[in-house]
């Protein structure tokens, strides 16, 4: 089993966005990994490892499309426990989702992977489309917005609980397949590989890299490619005309009592 995990480099979402000349100003931003991709790598590692031990059921390969020399986020994922990485050098901020998807699909094919795991959403662009596009381009089944995954190794399939509009859908997907992960995939019992004991104490968040992991990361293989090496011509059919701050909502007032609140809601806001 070979699992490909995508990771996007984004401006730190903890810092409020800055604007200049009708566009986002990221000149002074700190760049970090998209948090949903931390959930993706955590999912891959929980599938691959046999809880506690050193045995691995799968190889985990990290993939990012990012500008040359800007790959600390990839190193972080190697430090968390991925086996190796592929980096496609391109300024992804100038590419559309179809181009990114073509690059991811090309690496998936080249590596003959069995599973792609991506985040459901990038925290900056919030497109929620990469996994679906890659699945379409590869003509593979997809399970998006995954909240729970069980790997049926003898059946070579995944059983996935997906968060949908008004409940939870459970879908069985034969491998090879494409997965996108939602928030609850990192809860302690969300990922099952049939080998890790059911009561293995996973925390409710992605792991932190250990000191040993950080040291090891420097020795792990990173293959660097250009889009042309993959035979992909990239472009962008979506032009961002402007990015501005939204209108600010005025802070209201504090009320002193429940009585005053009800009075205000009835007579001033007229919502009761």
């Amino acid at each position, binding site marked *: 089993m070979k699992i490909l995990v995508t990771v996007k480099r984004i401006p730190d979402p903890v810092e409020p966005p800055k604007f200049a000349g009708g566009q986002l100003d990221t000149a002074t931003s700190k760049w970090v990994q998209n948090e949903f991709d931390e959930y993706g790598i955590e999912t891959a590692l929980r599938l691959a490892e046999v809880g506690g031990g050193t045995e691995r059921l799968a190889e985990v390969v990290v993939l990012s499309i990012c500008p040359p020399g800007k790959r600390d986020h990839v190193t972080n994922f190697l430090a968390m426990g991925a086996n190796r990485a592929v980096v496609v050098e391109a300024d992804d901020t100038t590419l559309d989702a*179809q181009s990114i998807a073509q690059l991811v699909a090309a690496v998936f094919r080249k590596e003959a992977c069995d599973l792609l795991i991506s985040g459901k959403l990038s925290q900056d662009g919030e497109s929620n489309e990469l996994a679906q596009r890659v699945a379409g*381009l590869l003509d593979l089944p997809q399970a998006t917005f995954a909240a729970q995954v069980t790997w049926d190794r003898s059946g070579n399939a995944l059983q996935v609980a997906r968060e949908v509009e008004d409940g939870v859908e459970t879908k069985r997907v034969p491998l090879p397949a494409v997965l996108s992960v939602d928030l609850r995939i990192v809860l302690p019992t969300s990922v099952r590989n049939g080998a890790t004991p059911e009561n293995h104490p996973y925390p409710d968040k992605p792991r932190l890299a250990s000191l040993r992991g950080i040291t090891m990361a420097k020795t792990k293989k990173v293959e660097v490619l250009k889009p042309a090496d993959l035979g992909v011509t990239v472009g962008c059919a979506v032009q961002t005309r402007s990015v501005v701050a939204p209108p600010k*909502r005025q802070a209201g007032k504090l009320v002193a009592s429940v009585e005053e609140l009800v009075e205000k809601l009835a007579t001033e806001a007229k919502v009761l």
Partner: protein
Amino acid sequence: MSKVLVVVELGDGKLRAHSLPGITAGQQVAASLSAELHLLVLGASPQAAAEAIAAEGWGAKTVHVAAHAGLEPFTAEAWADAIVVAARAIGPTAIGGTATSTLRDALPRAAALLGAPLAPEVTGVKGPRIFSREVWAGRALAELAMEGDLFFFTARASEFAPAQPGGAAASVASVDGVAANQRGVQVLSIEKTQSARPALTEAKVVVSGGRGMREGANFRVLEELTDLLGGALGASRAATDAGMVPADLQVGQTGKVVAPNLYIAVAISGAIQHLAGMKGSKVIVAINKNGEEPIFQIADYGLVAKWEDAVPRLTELIRARKG
């Protein structure tokens, strides 16, 4: 004349309410492009539903029917196949619909197969091929221009009023040669959250609880207030992650985006990811024991109090007022 194709969803053989904002967005896109509006209905045997929808008009020229046993239950794999076949037959300039979990699953896949760009979860139609949308958890507003012979869009339900039936009846046409291959997937179950309350994204009042509610049983107090106001129950991620309430009640960047007349946030701190899902509400009320929390910076009315004291009293006073 160019065409805008809106994909609608059926429930119990009828047009689903959550598809209506997508029709409105489609009408606006069609107007901006001087194009005709067309609707697409998919299912195992959706003919009767399509005829009923066509009779209601909706400003549409034609309701197209893609019928195939493999289209039910919904899978993105089969739906994307059928949408591609329909697109090739109908030749639209734009394909879209409401940004539901269904269309957010299927439309990007279809867009990839057709090599088309997609404007995701748009909040407004600003001109021909031009859309506004929120990015960065609602802290930035982007305007996009879509290029190419064909583009896709999904519309955020809270930002487009539900379409109203009316106008001339539409014609009904079937899409020939519909393919619908599920690629070996099986839908094993769909567990719907049972609720007699209005849908979160359609409710006029939303009462949400956060981590400070401590456990699921305590949501009883919020449910009483919710039902008195005829509203829907919501929650923060901390409350849904802790299993206090089902995950589909989550409001926020990764949950539902709501914009009711009245939003009451109880024991919720107001993290940006939560605000992203409710800051478009007309009137926001915050009840929290800590007056320093960011939720108070966007609330119209803030009450610094423990929910244990404030919420039962609030319910009591509103009930008295309603008589």
